[in-house]
């Protein structure tokens, strides 16, 4: 009994920080429609600044609480700085483009934090007078947990009063429903957005500061909280503070009880809940269907044109370069070493992966946050085939896209019922579930259970979890570096051409039709969901092919090939290159992979990569392919880029 109640209270107290972060995220999204990935970083900064302030002001009495408050305000100011210096300049860019800007901010904040506070974890200062424990039914509960339990309802009531009893709050609610209307009524949107960023960021900072006595501060906090915060926002319903409260409590309890009941499944439990909620309530627990109100008016995409002469020349040039590179390698091994070939193979693999994602994301208008499930799915399908049947590489290269496509058929059936951010989050949830299955080797557990039941001797390991599957090498004929290079280039170029061909065919046009105007699409007889489902499957299959090339190029596969970071990398590549262009994902993937490679060796590489991303976002808000539209591009004779490279 006491055990149960203490676990319950621990769960509720752990939900406090989650609720603060998630409510801030939800408010920012509601008004600005920006998916702020940097929100986890603000939470982390709240903790670090909190520690510094407590040290400066002393941890006695009022000073302690003042320090936490100052930390929240300071993080709020950082949020405002991000809005004024960065986001404000890219509001007109394609939807979700701001997302990569905030991703750049994450990387920069990570390295700045490392630079200021160092790599060691910091133990949080104890709250004055609350360092003891209370005894409940014979079980001990830290006194500070009671404070945390009280924080969430207090903040919830405070936010409710702010939104329902003040003019500013009313404007925020109005802007959440229809931004253009609010602007038309003469409200200064800039100040509204800036204010919302302050409030949302300060809430995240406060969340980071109040959890100090429990969790302290470390450099992994940002990524650890951001996934959970998104889950809470989506489960509760985007833009609904009450929903965020409910969902935070639910997830908090789930995690504390989950550790006791299923110690191995905590990684997946949260995402499982999100998937179930979204399947039955597509707009979250307390969310409403997105109103057809007026969003930002995006410049319409230019019509598709067949490759013009310029693009053909550039394309042939790149292909010729790719084909000649190994020759140069053989002639001048000191200049073009093995490493160059390895890098180009890696670039080509990501180019195919990004093009596959772009297929569903650009023309399809459906943004997937979990496409690594199909990349990794293909890789694992190939590797498992080889491991258990000794299948030759030629077979594995068929098995990978088919396996990934089957996975996409399954996931897609649920996902295409949703739209917008909810679609994105459901793909993320499925990807995490797939990742957890590989990471915890669920198939082996199932095999073991079945084995015990039927009296078989089951295999010990199937995916082998974190150890991965090793020893997947190309067939004899393709084993040399140069041959595998040509194989990769050949398959990737063929894949790109097929994807391009489909987009120019009626199927691709139908996909774009559904994105442009679902209303008109239905009125000319298009079964949009069915086409989207097929497109999702095609996209998954090509991502799976990229995964097969990947596993044979590395000789092994690990669960990291399915993790969130891999999905986001692909997303960044597409957005960075330009989502409204067929060449965009190719340029984006090549640039991103190459930059990653250059910066990887340097210390503070995250800062450099993040700063580069931010710079690109600010200079080329329509993606790298819009370089020709800028004055520099025109001077170089590149322009007009966007249309020419469509």
């Amino acid at each position: 009994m006491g055990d149960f109640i203490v676990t319950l209270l621990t769960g509720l107290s752990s939900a406090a920080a989650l609720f603060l972060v998630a409510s801030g995220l939800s408010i920012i999204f509601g008004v600005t429609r920006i998916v702020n990935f940097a929100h986890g970083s603000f939470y982390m900064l709240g903790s670090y600044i909190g520690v510094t302030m407590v040290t400066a002001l002393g941890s006695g009495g009022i000073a302690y609480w003042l320090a936490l408050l100052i930390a929240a305000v300071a993080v709020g100011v950082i949020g405002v700085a991000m809005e004024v210096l960065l986001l404000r300049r890219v509001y007109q860019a394609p939807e979700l483009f701001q997302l990569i800007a905030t991703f750049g901010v994450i990387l920069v904040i990570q390295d700045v934090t490392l630079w200021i506070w160092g790599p060691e974890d910091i133990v949080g200062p104890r709250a004055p007078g609350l360092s003891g424990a209370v005894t409940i039914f014979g079980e001990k509960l830290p006194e500070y947990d009671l404070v945390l339990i009280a924080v969430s309802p207090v903040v919830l009531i405070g936010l409710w009063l702010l939104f329902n009893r003040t003019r500013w709050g009313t404007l925020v609610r109005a802007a959440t429903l229809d931004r253009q209307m609010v602007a038309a009524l003469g409200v200064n949107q800039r100040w509204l957005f800036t204010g919302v960023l302050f409030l949302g960021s300060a809430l995240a900072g406060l969340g980071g500061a109040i959890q100090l006595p429990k969790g302290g501060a470390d450099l992994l906090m940002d990524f650890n909280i951001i996934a959970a915060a998104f889950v809470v926002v989506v489960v509760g319903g985007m833009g609904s503070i009450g929903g965020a409260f409910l969902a935070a409590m639910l997830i908090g309890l789930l995690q504390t009880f989950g550790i006791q009941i299923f110690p191995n499944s905590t990684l997946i439990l949260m995402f499982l809940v999100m998937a179930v909620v979204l399947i039955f309530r597509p707009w979250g627990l307390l969310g409403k269907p997105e109103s057809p109100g007026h969003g930002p008016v995006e410049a319409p995409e230019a019509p598709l044109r067949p490759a013009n002469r310029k693009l053909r020349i550039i394309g042939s040039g790149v292909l010729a370069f790719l084909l000649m590179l190994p020759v140069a390698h053989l002639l001048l091994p000191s200049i073009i070493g093995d490493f160059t070939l390895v890098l180009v193979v890696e670039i080509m693999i990501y180019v195919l992966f990004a093009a596959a994602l772009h297929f569903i994301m650009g023309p399809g208008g459906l943004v997937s946050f979990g496409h690594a499930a199909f990349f990794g799915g293909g890789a694992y399908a190939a590797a498992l085939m080889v491991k258990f049947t000794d299948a030759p590489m030629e077979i594995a290269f068929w098995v990978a896209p088919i396996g990934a496509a089957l996975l996409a058929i399954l996931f897609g059936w649920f996902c295409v019922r949703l739209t917008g951010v909810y679609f994105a989050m459901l793909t993320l949830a499925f990807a995490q579930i797939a990742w957890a299955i590989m990471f915890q080797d669920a198939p082996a557990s199932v095999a073991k259970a079945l084995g015990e039941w039927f009296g078989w001797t089951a295999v010990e390991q199937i995916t082998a979890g974190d150890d991965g599957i090793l020893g997947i090498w190309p067939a004899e004929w393709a084993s040399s570096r140069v041959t595998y290079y040509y194989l990769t280039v050949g398959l990737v170029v063929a894949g790109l051409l097929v994807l391009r061909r489909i987009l120019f065919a009626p199927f691709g046009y139908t996909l774009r039709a559904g994105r442009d105007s679902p209303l008109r699409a239905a009125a000319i007889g298009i079964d949009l969901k069915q086409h989207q489902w097929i497109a999702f499957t095609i996209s998954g299959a090509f991502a799976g092919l990229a995964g097969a090339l990947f596993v044979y190029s590395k000789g092994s596969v690990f669960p990291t090939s399915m993790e969130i970071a891999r999905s986001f990398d692909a997303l960044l590549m597409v957005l960075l290159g330009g989502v409204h262009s067929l060449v965009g994902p190719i340029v984006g993937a090549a640039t991103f992979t190459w930059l990653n490679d250059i910066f990887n060796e340097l210390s503070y590489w995250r800062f450099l990569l993040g700063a580069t991303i931010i710079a690109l976002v600010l200079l080329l808000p329509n993606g790298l392919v819009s370089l020709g539209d800028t004055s520099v591009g025109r001077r170089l004779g590149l322009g007009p880029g966007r249309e020419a490279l469509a």
Partner: protein
Amino acid sequence: MSTPILEVSNLSKAYGGVQAVQDVSFVLNAGELLALIGPNGAGKTTCFNMLMGQIKPDSGVIRLKGNDITGRPPQRIWRMGVGRTFQITATFTSMTVRENVQMALINHQHASRRWWKPAAATDVAHADALLGRVGMAEQGDRACSVLAYGDLKRVELAVALANDPDLLLMDEPTAGMAPKERIELMQLAADIVSERGIGVLFTEHDMDVVFAHAHRIMVLNRGCLLAEGAPKSVRANAQVREIYLGSTVRAEVE
């Protein structure tokens, strides 16, 4: 007389406590231009969306050429021969004018899953013929996103004709257009209707357009059908004047 194109019986729809459409019944024959008018909030658009399948009615039956289509999804209703234009134009902005029409033609032939032959090369002649009929032949290669509003309405009309419909639903076809354009567009629609023998149901706020082109007029008020008949008799209906046109315009109408 043959089966009417459209036969609506006792159609009703309520939103919460508000009866948006109540017990509406009417018939539409081939070659007929039927106007549905009424003040704002009378239930015209709700009525329209039920006919096209965007909204499911609470009760009532909709028959198209004798077949019950009540509550079917828009895609199915379109396949059975119903074209539609929208109050606020709905076109594919990332495509050219011709491609918009080609999309409708491609779907009409169940070819939307073809994945090899370029879409822009399909049914070019047919698409151009349709564009020619609405006076947009020269603008086939322009992007839909740069067209003037009146031209977009014409493109929508061409798209709506692509499946050779028996019934055309036009929700405020001339909203947002200049007076001269309105007359031209409605004349165009009337010509096409008589050429092809299509039945047309349209809603409209511009009384000049309604009385100049409609063969028959239905007046909707607060969800109920108030009057129905030839323009002349509707014009003379005292109830319509009182409730819909209002007493101040009586002199003008007379």
